[in-house]
Every structure is written in structure tokens, then in C-alpha cells.
């Protein structure tokens, strides 16, 4: 099958193409160079003048696993406002803050996204996370597995085990849970909360294991680096949401001593304590540090106003946040000597000083960080806002007058204390293509995704350029997944499965001996049954696995 997309204006930053009129050819799911003259073209799409980008990639979105399902179960009233009817090809479901898996897959596709990555998969919950991702159609998926609060790792670190052994354990966990990267959440803090510690800064010690977040971060970042895991250690830092945490975040950047590190939903970690209300923007200092330290990448975790739900592994910080639950209900869980989770529904209000400033801080970060290759567009779905708000967020970034109009509607004191009005920057289509395609693919090590060069998977999105960028990005004309037309005019037209991206870093198999003993003595299941096998994704989940190479 040979397909031609004819006459589109191509934005393909990975190949340095910035708005050039260019035909794209697809054969059997892959992009190819222009075929020899006379080749039979089976189908031509005339997209003259339309904007063409690779399919978008969400590097941080909570789409599967226990805490997401807790959020779904806890919020029937939220689903009722967004019931999704079945059609002749799509299944029914629900949307908004904690959408059903099926609706998640459809809506991402309809927005031109072709891959989504679950950032907080607990090893012990990996099986269920993959079940849910298997039921998220069309898009590709993958997950970062959570370490750094599990008793096994903390015992290793406390026992001064050598770094090679820690790397073996990290690699083993990636394989056993079918993960694509490593995430750490409030390093050591989830464990500390189990010992009733309520606060843990970068250099404070976990009362039981006597190790600090700084040591945990260094050890994990080094393991990730040594193993050649493409995506840097994915870090949800200490003190999320705490006024003044800007200092912790700057220290965290320094602490890693040049190793690659990804700081996620950094908006929640960029707060100062200035002003009458002891809450201020730290965006300028954070952006300066990010600009200076090329080993650091970030995603923003932008908040947008309205009802949502926060779902996080960070029990320590979520417990503190539960006082603000809206509606007033919340779930906290300690989980299997692995980690924990906290689910707190939340409503961000534009007339609230704190919420309006959070909104402004996120936007300031977007506009102050120079290099779009190191900053990714996220709302930390659903924590800052549901992923369906992305087109609105893109408009805020691309349209200064719209942004200023919005700024004039939020809490006046917050608007006044933010420098947002003075920031003139408007993102270009090229920069949007970097931030939502090329950069995430590069960061995750997905060599054949996020670009439109020969050999790439034909994940392609075609938009009609529009002055109103929200309208433009909400409903692409065409979305192709692996060469198949899956959405047209913002509606799904074909259901495919999507693949699961994983890694298989090498490690010393000898580690299973001590792990086996540990499982037998302390865990509640056998090591053999803990490991998620390929056939569970392939046969039981009717999906397929793509093994990405390590560096």
C-alpha cells in the first residue's frame, strides 16, 4: 500500500524542516523517500497548504494503573457530565478528568496524538497498568516504573551496596515490569510517610533508612545513565506544592552533578514565598537554571481552571493536599513496600490568588525557557488539567493577545504579581512541533517516532492552519497511525491497537537470587509471579511490544 500526502506544509524539526511545502509518501506503515517515477500510488490525500507534523507524543500523562482507576471509581459525578455514546466503530465510555481507557485512546487520537506515556507505574501494579493501557486503543503507550521508595532499594542504599548492584536491580525492574524508563516520586518521602514523617527535604534523612533524597536521586540517575536507558531519570521532586520549594528545586538541579535528569511538572515545584501572601512565582529562577544546565529537561504540568482530580504516588504531599479536596473526599494508600498513592479531587479557580498564580507560573516557565528541545507540553493529566485542554494551552503559548485577555480575567493580585503580561514571546508552529513531537521522541529514545523522515513510523497529523490555534489543534483534518487513517476531521474512523514500547537493559542475572529470597521473606507474592510476561501484553492484551534499544 503506497499513500501520498500531497502538497502539505511540513514542520519536522528532527530533520530541520520548518514549514516547507513537501509531499510525504507512506508505504506499509512507514514513511519512505519519493518512490521511483511510475510507482503505483494507491491513495493520494490532497492536503495542499495544510500543516503536517508527526503524531504528537505525551511524555507524562496518567492514563493507566491503580491510582487512575481509583480516581475513576471515586468520581461518578464527574463522568456524568461527559458520557460518551458508542458509535458504529467506537465503544462507549466517559470523559473529563478521569476518562475511561477507551475514551482516552479515542480523544488523544482525535487531537492528533499517537503516543502516550504513563509516568508512574508501580512495579507491583505494573500488570494492571498494562491491562489498562492495552484497553487504550490506537495510540502507542509505555510507562516509567517507580523506584526510590521501595524497601528493597532503600535497604540497598542504606547498606551501601555498590552502584553496579543498584544498576542491576534497576534494569531487572524495568524488564520485570515492561517499562520504558525510571521515575522517582518524592525520593524516599513516600517511604518516610509510612514511618509518619510528614516532610522530607533534599538533605533530610528518611528516619528508618537514614538516607536522603539527594543520595537516592544520584544513585538512580547514575544507574539510568550507566544502563543506557535513553530517557533520563524522571523526577517528581521533594516538597511538591510547598511555597518556597523553588530552593529545593534549584538544589536538586545542582545535586545531580551534570547527570541527565528530567524534572516533571516543574510548575508545582517553582514556588517562592515573597509578597503579602507568602506565595510567589519562582519561574524566573527555575527557567534560568534550566537554561544554564543542559543536562536538565522539564515538563511543565500546566494548571488550567476547572474541576479535575490529582492522582499521585506522593502520599506525603497528597495527604497535606487533602484539606483542599473538592469535592470533599480523598483516597490515600500505602502500597506493598513499593510506594503509595494519593487521589484528591481538586478545583482550580481563576479567582483564587494561589490557583491564578499557579496558572501564571506555568506559562512563565513555558515562555522563559529558551530551548524547546528540553521543555515538554504537559498538564500532568489529570493533575493540572485533563489532557483535552491541550489545544487551549497551545493557543495560550502561540497567541499573546489571547493570553493577555485571559490574564485580565484571573485574580487581580495574582496577575499583578506575575511578570506574564511583560512576556512577548509567542511559540511558532516549529517550536510546538519540537515540544510535542521531536523532543519527546528524542528524550524517550524512540528513533522512528516524532519525525517524518524516511524510515519513520507513519504517525502523521494534518491540520488546517487557523488564526485560532485552539481550533486548529483541537480537530486535525487527518491523523495517521502506522500509515492507517485513524481519525478524520477530529473523529475516529478506524480502531487499531497501538504498541507498547519497552526496554531490555542488560544486567547480571545473579541479582535474582537475592531478590528471590527477599520476595519469599517479605513480599506477598512470588518473584516468578511478579514478573510481567510478554504473552500477557501480546496474547491476553491483544497488543504488541516494541523493544527500544538502549544507548
Amino acid at each position, binding site marked *: 500500500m503506497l499513500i501520498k500526502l500531497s502538497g502539505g506544509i511540513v514542520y519536522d524539526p528532527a530533520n530541520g524542516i520548518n514549514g516547507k511545502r513537501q509531499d510525504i509518501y507512506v508505504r506499509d506503515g512507514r514513511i519512505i523517500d519519493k518512490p521511483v517515477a511510475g510507482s503505483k500510488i494507491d491513495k493520494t490525500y490532497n492536503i495542499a497548504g495544510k500543516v503536517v507534523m508527526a503524531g504528537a507524543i505525551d511524555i507524562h500523562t496518567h492514563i493507566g494503573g491503580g491510582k487512575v482507576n481509583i480516581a475513576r471509581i471515586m468520581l461518578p459525578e464527574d463522568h456524568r457530565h461527559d458520557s460518551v455514546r458508542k458509535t458504529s466503530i467506537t*465503544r462507549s465510555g466517559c470523559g473529563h478528568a478521569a476518562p475511561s481507557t477507551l475514551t482516552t485512546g479515542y480523544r488523544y487520537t482525535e487531537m492528533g496524538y499517537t503516543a502516550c506515556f504513563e509516568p508512574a507505574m508501580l512495579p507491583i501494579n505494573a500488570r494492571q497498568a498494562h491491562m489498562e493501557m492495552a484497553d487504550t486503543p490506537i495510540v502507542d503507550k509505555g510507562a516509567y516504573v517507580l523506584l526510590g521508595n521501595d524497601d528493597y532499594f532503600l535497604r540497598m542504599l542504606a547498606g551501601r551496596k555498590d552502584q553496579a548492584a543498584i544498576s542491576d536491580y534497576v534494569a531487572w525492574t524495568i524488564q520485570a515490569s515492561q517499562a520504558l524508563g525510571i521515575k522517582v516520586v518524592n525520593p524516599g518521602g513516600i517511604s518516610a510517610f*509510612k514511618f509518619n514523617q510528614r516532610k522530607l527535604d533534599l538533605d533530610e534523612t528518611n528516619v528508618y533508612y537514614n538516607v536522603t533524597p539527594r543520595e537516592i536521586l544520584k544513585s538512580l540517575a547514575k544507574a539510568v545513565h550507566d544502563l543506557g536507558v535513553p530517557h533520563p531519570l524522571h523526577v517528581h521532586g521533594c516538597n511538591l506544592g510547598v511555597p518556597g520549594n523553588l530552593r529545593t528545586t534549584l538544589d536538586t538541579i545542582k545535586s545531580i552533578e551534570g547527570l541527565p535528569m528530567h524534572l516533571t511538572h516543574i510548575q508545582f515545584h517553582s514556588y517562592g514565598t515573597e509578597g503579602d501572601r507568602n506565595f510567589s512565582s519562582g519561574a524566573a529562577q527555575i527557567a534560568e537554571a534550566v537554561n544554564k544546565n543542559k543536562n536538565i529537561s522539564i515538563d511543565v504540568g500546566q494548571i488550567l481552571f476547572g474541576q479535575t482530580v490529582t492522582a499521585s504516588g506522593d502520599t506525603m504531599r497528597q495527604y497535606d493536599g487533602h484539606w483542599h479536596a473538592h469535592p470533599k473526599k480523598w483516597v*490515600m494508600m500505602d502500597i506493598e513496600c513499593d510506594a503509595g498513592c494519593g487521589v484528591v479531587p481538586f478545583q482550580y479557580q481563576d479567582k483564587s490568588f494561589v490557583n491564578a498564580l499557579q496558572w501564571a507560573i506555568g506559562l512563565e516557565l513555558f515562555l522563559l525557557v529558551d530551548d524547546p528541545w528540553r521543555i515538554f507540553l504537559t498538564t500532568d493529566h489529570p493533575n493540572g488539567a485533563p489532557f483535552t485542554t491541550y489545544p487551549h494551552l497551545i493557543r495560550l503559548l502561540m497567541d499573546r493577545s489571547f493570553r493577555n485577555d485571559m490574564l485580565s480575567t484571573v485574580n487581580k493580585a495574582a496577575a499583578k504579581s506575575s511578570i506574564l503580561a511583560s512576556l512577548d514571546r509567542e511559540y511558532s508552529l516549529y517550536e510546538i512541533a519540537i515540544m510535542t513531537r521531536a523532543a519527546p521522541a528524542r528524550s524517550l529514545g524512540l528513533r522512528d517516532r516524532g519525525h517524518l523522515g524516511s524510515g519513520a513510523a507513519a504517525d502523521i497529523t494534518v491540520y488546517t492552519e487557523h488564526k485560532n490555534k485552539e481550533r486548529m489543534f483541537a480537530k486535525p483534518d487527518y491523523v495517521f497511525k502506522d500509515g492507517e487513517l485513524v481519525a478524520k476531521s477530529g473523529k475516529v474512523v478506524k480502531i487499531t491497537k497501538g504498541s507498547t514500547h519497552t526496554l531490555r537493559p542488560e544486567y547480571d542475572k545473579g541479582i535474582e537470587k537475592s531478590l528471590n529470597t527477599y520476595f519469599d521473606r517479605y513480599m506477598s507474592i512470588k518473584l516468578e509471579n511478579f514478573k510481567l510476561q510478554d504473552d500477557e501484553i501480546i496474547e491476553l492484551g491483544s497488543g504488541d511490544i516494541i523493544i527500544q534499544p538502549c544507548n
Partner: protein
Amino acid sequence: MTIDTESRRHLNVPCPFCNLLCDDLVIENRKGKLKVSQHGCHLAKKQFEQEQPGVTPRIGKKDCTLEDATRAAAKILKRSKQALIGGLGTDVNGARAALQLTEKASAIIDHMHSDAAFRNLDVMQNHGWVMTTMAEIKNRADLIIFAGTDANTNYPRFFERVIYPNDSLVNANKKNRQIVYIGENLNIAPAKKAGGKQPINLECRQDKIGEVTSTIHAIAAGQEIVKHAIGSITLAQLKELTELIQQAKYGVIVWAPGELNFPYAELTVQSISELVKYLNRTTRFSGFTLGGNEGGMTANQVTAWQSGYPSRVSFAKGYPEYDPYRFSAWQLLRNKEIDALLWISSFSAPIEIARPRIPTIVLAAPSIRINFTPDIFIPVSTPGINHVGQIIRTDSVVSLKLRKIQESQHPSVSEVLNQITNQYR
């Protein structure tokens, strides 16, 4: 890959017959006959070792092929205006297939144990809660309160695996664990026999447990209590227990919603959960719940991720509509609000439905007792014995892959349901 399932010894076999999902069973397959040789409780032994008669599908009392049976089943569902897909005693793929068929048939879906599950879900959806899981209790808990359950009767290996294991990471001296029972007719022998601290046993009627926990909550909050006793439990005893609770470093309160079998038991669960939440202001305390047997937790979880709601969902309007009262399977059956029934039980639960008097389709393991003659009967194999599958544990966090350790001539639930669904195309 083909595995010779005949005549071999299977190690670390997960057991799906209660929702602790013990996964260390050693099972011998001798020429197709199973014997649990190690680590099986009496429930596991009974279920793994029983022989499943080889039977064929039936329409009425007449044997038929699977194709005939699924075609006839589809006909019943297509003709119905409001069908119920119930029971749901199956694995993850069975639940997936059931949801797909329910949507196709514009039917209602619910699990057989939902009455119990909703005592918990009502509380979780309205107030939330603080919970923990098995390995956390095993390694951390210094105080464990059993409220209305002794755990032991329905979950025979809970004490061995969780309460008195040989090793624990943090709470090294397991014999220092304080066990407390609140409720009626509880078997406290396992805690008595353990040789550590003697258990505290506060006997009261099951429907008084909520009053006990609310009173403890009030004492902990510094309220003046005017009542001198709840049943035979004195205020002094409650004050003593409150002190223990507040001093505990990692306390856990365990309940089994299925054993709180009285009207408005969700209020008892609410009282327990609110106490636990309150205690977390100063110390660490968690709830733990035992239930979700017969694929109940699995059905709740799969239904939640596919529809947004845990169970009791109608697809009559073309989208999932949730109503924990109107769409209760047992209530729909009692009130005769459905005109066709498809019931699934592939683990061990007998099927007892009082005079359905509507067209009925039953998918069940052949040994399962049914108290009526269904219009269509389709024998199915059991996940974890006859085919691989996945299942989710009582704590809603841990799931396991179930194995195939014995051949069966019968199809899986998902195979049968997918065949019925295919009749709609």
C-alpha cells in the same frame, strides 16, 4: 509455545478461589488429575482437586454444539428489551468480553457479590478512605484490629501469610503485634495460639461495630462520652483501646464487607474509614478490606477502566449509565425488571436464583450447582486451572497471571462471550 499440561508438578501456582490469591501452591497433575501437594488451604484443595464432568452445551435439556448455543443465546439477548449480564465470576478477559457484550446488547452489568462491594464503594465514592495492602501489613503493622471478621474463616491463610509471617522488614518482632477483635462469633484461636501478646476480644453484635468505632473516634477527638457501655463493651475498655490505637506506629483495621451483612452496613464502613482518616492526623493508620471473591474485584476494576464506573452499569442508552440502586443485579431479579438473564460463574460459586421465569443463559464450570434449568447452558473452563488469565487481588493493587495446569474440553468465558458478541455483526 505449547506446554505439556499432563503429568507434571507445578510450582508457585496462583489460586483464584479466595481473593488473597495465594501463589505458592504446589500442584501435581497426574494424567490429568490434580492434587494440591503443598500450601493449599481446604478451599484450594476442594476446587483444584474436584473433577469437572465432561458435558456439552445444552438448549433446555437437549445437548447441542457451542455454535448452536451461542447463536441461541444471541437470539435471546437480541429479542430482550432489558437484559442483565450478571454473576461475572471470571477473569480480566472474561470481564472485558462481558462488557463488550453488555454494550452490544444494551444490557445491564453487575457482579454477584456487588451487595458486599457496594458497602465499601458507597463510602469510597462519598468520603474516600486510607487503605493499605498485604505486604505493608506483613512488614509494618504493630496493631491489627479485626472488625466483624476473623479473616481466618473465609481467608484461611491470612494469618499465616500476613499476620504471623516468619519475617518482617520493620516490625521485626512479630510476636509483639497486638491483635484486637471487635464483633460477634469470631474465631480468635489463631491469634491466641500464636504465643505472642494475647488478643483483645471485644464482643458485640455486628451492627454495633460502627457505634464502637465512632465512639473510639469521639474519644480520640477528646469528646466527652456519656454512654457507659456498648452492649457488653465498657467505656473503660474503649478508652483503653483508643490509647492503644493512638500509640500504634502503624495500625490497621481489617473488615470484610461481605461479613457485615445487615441493612445500612455501609455506615459501619464509613465509621471505620472516618476513624482511620482522623487517626492519620497524628499517626499512621490504615484500613484493609477482604473481599472481591469470584472475580469480584477484577470485575469492578475492569468495569471501572472501561466505563468509568465500578459495577451496576446500564448500557441501554448507548452510553454507560451508573446507578448503584436501580442496576443492582439481585434487585433487578427480585423486582422482575429484566426480560433476559446471562449469568457467569467459572470459579466456584453456586448459582441460586429464585424462579427467574425469564429466558436464561448460564455460563458455568460444569461442577457448579444451579438451582434451575437454564434455557441455555454453556459449560466453561476455569481460569487458573484450564486456561491462563489475569485476576486482581482483594487490595485492588496486586494482580496475578493465572496458569493453565490442566486440559479442558470447555471454552473460556471470554471465548463464549465473544462468539455471542460476534452474532451482532
